[in-house]
Structures are given as structure tokens and as C-alpha cells.
């Protein structure tokens, strides 16, 4: 099949018009990028576009969803019985722990009343499924199947059964993008459960590693220490597990320790996550002075 190369084609593709068009397109893209980088300006446009591309994501997710459905529907009787047994035992164990929790929670409320500080309120949660779509390969982002319609908001915390997963970075009507705690741009206020030592856990870009770069050399840390969220940045609720410290390196001449932690949540295996709503009224009603006193109490 011969390729047609007409006079017109030559003039349209090699003339000045295409150079002009490239300049215009580059200008438009630059304006878009600047506006998008400053956030909030393009939220509506992005939402509209995300609805347009949602079918692509749904189609890609479909075979994986079908696979899971088939896995659930065609599993053997004995496997189901085994799973059922396991779940029964787990419910029993969790029930036993919960009984103790109820007593502890009541005690906690009483003690907090004595200290005249705000009682921690139970968080509202919603289960969301992860859409089987790869986002930007250089970032740790996921797409979940709950969005603005379900009340999901930007900055909302995500957890799984084992610990904190990440936070919502961009809402769409039917879905939401979330950044994992291991993303290189993510930071999370944490405290060591053993001694309430507060610090910041930074993502590293490695799916199984968090870094704690701000611990002084004389800080009381040990391998195996559990990190829990401190709730100080107000983005994450306090007291959820974040990770376990696995490695502490002290280099001569450096003011800070190099501490690595392993995230508690199974970040590369999760299929379902929990979205947490915090009681916004309580948070907003809390005056700044009081928030500070709670923080210092914790620090002691």
C-alpha cells in the first residue's frame, strides 16, 4: 500500500502552522500544570475528566473482579468449611479482646473526665475496595471504589486490619485516589507505643520501608518498637499502628539516627481498606490551647 504524500500534507505538516500549534499546546499545558500544581483550581475539571475515563478503569478492573468472584463461588466445600472455622475462632478471640476493651474504654473516659480533657470518640468507618488499576508507576498511589458520593473527602485516613494505609489525595464522584504512607512525599506524625516518644515517619518510595529521620542519637528506640499514629497532624486519628522499627543505624558525626521501620499494613497485598471519619465537631470545638496541653501531656 503506497503512502500518499500530497502537496497539502507537506505544507500542513512541515510549515509554520504545526510549530505555532505546538507553541499554543505547550502554553496551554503549562497553564494547566501550574493551576493544577497550586491545587483546587482544576478540581472540577479533573472530576469531570475522571468520570470520562472511569469506563476504562472499570473495564480493566472487570477481569480481576470476575476472578475474585469466581474464586469465591467455585471454591470447594471443604475449603469453605476450613475458612469458616478459622473465622469463627478469630471472632471468638476478637470478642474476648473487645470485652477487655470495653472496660478499658470506660476507664479511659473516667480518667479523662478527671483530667478535664476531651474523651476520644469512636471513629466512623466505611469499607472500600481497591480498584485493580495501576496508577503512576513512580508514586505509591491507589484507586478505591468509594468517592465523593459516599462522603469521602480529601485528607481522609485509610486503614486496613493491621494498621494505617494512607490518606485520600484526590476525590472523584465514583472513586478516590489515595497516597500510601510509603510514598516518597508522605509524612506521618507517629509516636513509639512503648514510651510515647513523638517523631515523624517519612515514606521512602519502597513499599516495605518507612524512615524516621528526626530521632536524635540519644533517643530511646529499639528494634521491634511499635509505632502508632500520634494524631498530632490532625490528618490521622491517634492510636492506630503504623509500623515496627526494624533497623537502627548510628553513624559517627551525624546528629540523627537512621531508623527504618516496616509498615504494619500489608500495603502490597491489600484488597480492602477502611475509610475513617473523625468526629469533626469535637476536633473543631477543641481550642488550640487545649490541643497543646493534650500534646504536652502526651509528651511527658
Amino acid at each position, binding site marked *: 500500500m503506497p503512502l500518499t504524500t500530497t502537496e497539502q500534507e507537506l505544507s500542513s505538516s512541515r510549515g509554520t502552522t504545526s510549530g505555532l*500549534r505546538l507553541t499554543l499546546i505547550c502554553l496551554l*499545558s503549562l497553564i494547566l*500544570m501550574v*493551576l*493544577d500544581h497550586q491545587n483546587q483550581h482544576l478540581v472540577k475539571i479533573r472530576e469531570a*475528566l475522571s468520570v470520562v475515563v472511569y469506563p476504562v478503569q472499570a473495564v480493566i478492573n472487570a477481569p480481576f473482579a470476575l476472578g475474585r468472584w469466581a474464586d469465591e463461588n467455585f471454591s470447594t466445600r471443604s475449603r469453605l468449611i476450613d475458612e469458616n472455622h478459622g473465622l469463627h475462632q478469630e471472632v471468638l478471640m476478637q470478642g474476648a479482646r473487645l470485652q477487655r476493651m470495653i472496660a478499658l474504654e470506660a476507664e479511659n473516659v473516667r480518667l479523662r473526665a478527671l483530667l478535664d480533657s476531651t474523651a476520644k470518640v469512636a471513629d466512623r468507618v466505611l469499607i472500600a475496595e481497591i480498584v485493580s488499576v495501576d496508577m503512576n508507576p*513512580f508514586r505509591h498511589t491507589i484507586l478505591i471504589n468509594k468517592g465523593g458520593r459516599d462522603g469521602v473527602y480529601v485528607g481522609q485516613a485509610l486503614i486496613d486490619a493491621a494498621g494505617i494505609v494512607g490518606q485520600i489525595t484526590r476525590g472523584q464522584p465514583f472513586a478516590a485516589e489515595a497516597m500510601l504512607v510509603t510514598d516518597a512525599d508522605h509524612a506521618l506524625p507517629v509516636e513509639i507505643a512503648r514510651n510515647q516518644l513523638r517523631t515523624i515517619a517519612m515514606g521512602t*518510595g519502597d513499599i516495605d520501608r518507612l524512615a524516621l529521620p528526626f530521632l536524635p542519637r540519644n533517643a530511646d528506640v529499639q528494634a521491634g518498637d511499635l509505632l502508632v499514629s500520634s494524631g498530632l497532624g490532625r490528618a490521622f486519628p491517634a492510636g492506630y499502628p503504623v509500623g515496627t522499627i526494624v533497623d537502627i543505624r548510628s553513624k559517627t558525626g551525624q546528629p540523627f539516627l537512621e531508623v527504618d521501620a516496616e509498615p504494619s499494613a500489608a500495603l502490597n497485598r491489600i484488597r480492602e481498606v477502611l475509610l475513617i471519619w473523625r468526629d469533626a465537631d469535637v476536633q473543631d470545638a477543641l481550642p488550640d490551647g487545649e490541643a497543646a496541653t493534650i500534646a504536652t501531656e502526651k509528651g511527658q
Partner: protein
Amino acid sequence: MSHKPVVWPVWVVMITAISLEVVPLPGFMQPLRPPWAAIAVIYWTMMWPRRFGLGAAWIVGITLDVLHGTLLGENAIALSIVAYLTLRFHLQIRIFPMWQLTMTVFALLAINAFVQFWIDGVAGVSAAGIGRWTQVMIGAILWPPLMALMDRVRVQIQTRGSAFI
């Protein structure tokens, strides 16, 4: 004999390429994912410069930006620049022998990756790693078979188009 070939199969190819960009892969395969959309844009701009040009490349880029969650315009500007260069030199590139063509595609894919790398740097997105550059390599290696595949699509469209007249 003049005829107007149908255009929709090109968009089917494009949507397939865009979908392949977000199909889930296990973590270690991530750096081996070829830049499908950029390859498709280069091919169709080179072969059909009158029907597939800058505007189309920009639309493909914006779609990728929305799907990847990158800055709106990042992939769009990179793909537009690649499409412009392809358009500018398509008459030369077309008659290159395969190895030379593959090298050219390698250069174009590298430009695509570099523009994104640069924008990420300016925007303060910390995206380290060698994955970006291995993707360029894989893209160039896969160019000959992918070109053969898309050649078949194009020949199908053109022969069918003439049969309809």
C-alpha cells in the same frame, strides 16, 4: 483513486494502548512496562500525519494524566512534543531501515521520559528510580513487533476503505 479511510480503528488502538498503561502489574514488572501510548502516538503520527497529529496526541496525554494522577498536562506536553518532532521529520523517518528507525524511536521515547522527568523535578515530585529509563529501553526493544502489528491494522483499514468505494 482517492478514498477516505475510516478513523475509528486508530482510536481503538489508542484506547487499547492507554488501557495497557494502567493494567495492574506486579511490582517488579513495573519498570518493564513499555510506554504503550507514546509508541502508538509515534506510529500513527508518522504514518498518518494528516489524520493524527498534535491535537490528538494532546488528548491522549491528558487522558493519561487523569488516569495516572499526574499533573494535568504533564503527559500531554511530553506527547505533543514527541508528536511534533515525529511530524516534522516523518518523511525522513518513514524510509529509515528498521534499526535506524528503532534508534529514532528510542530517542523520541527518551525525550518523552525526559520532559516528564523535568516537570516532576520542577514540581517537586520526588520520583527517584531507574524505572523511567528502563521503560524507554523496553519501548525501543518492542518497537519492531509493535510496528508490524500496527502496520497490519493500517493496511486492513486502507484496503477495506478502498473496497468500499
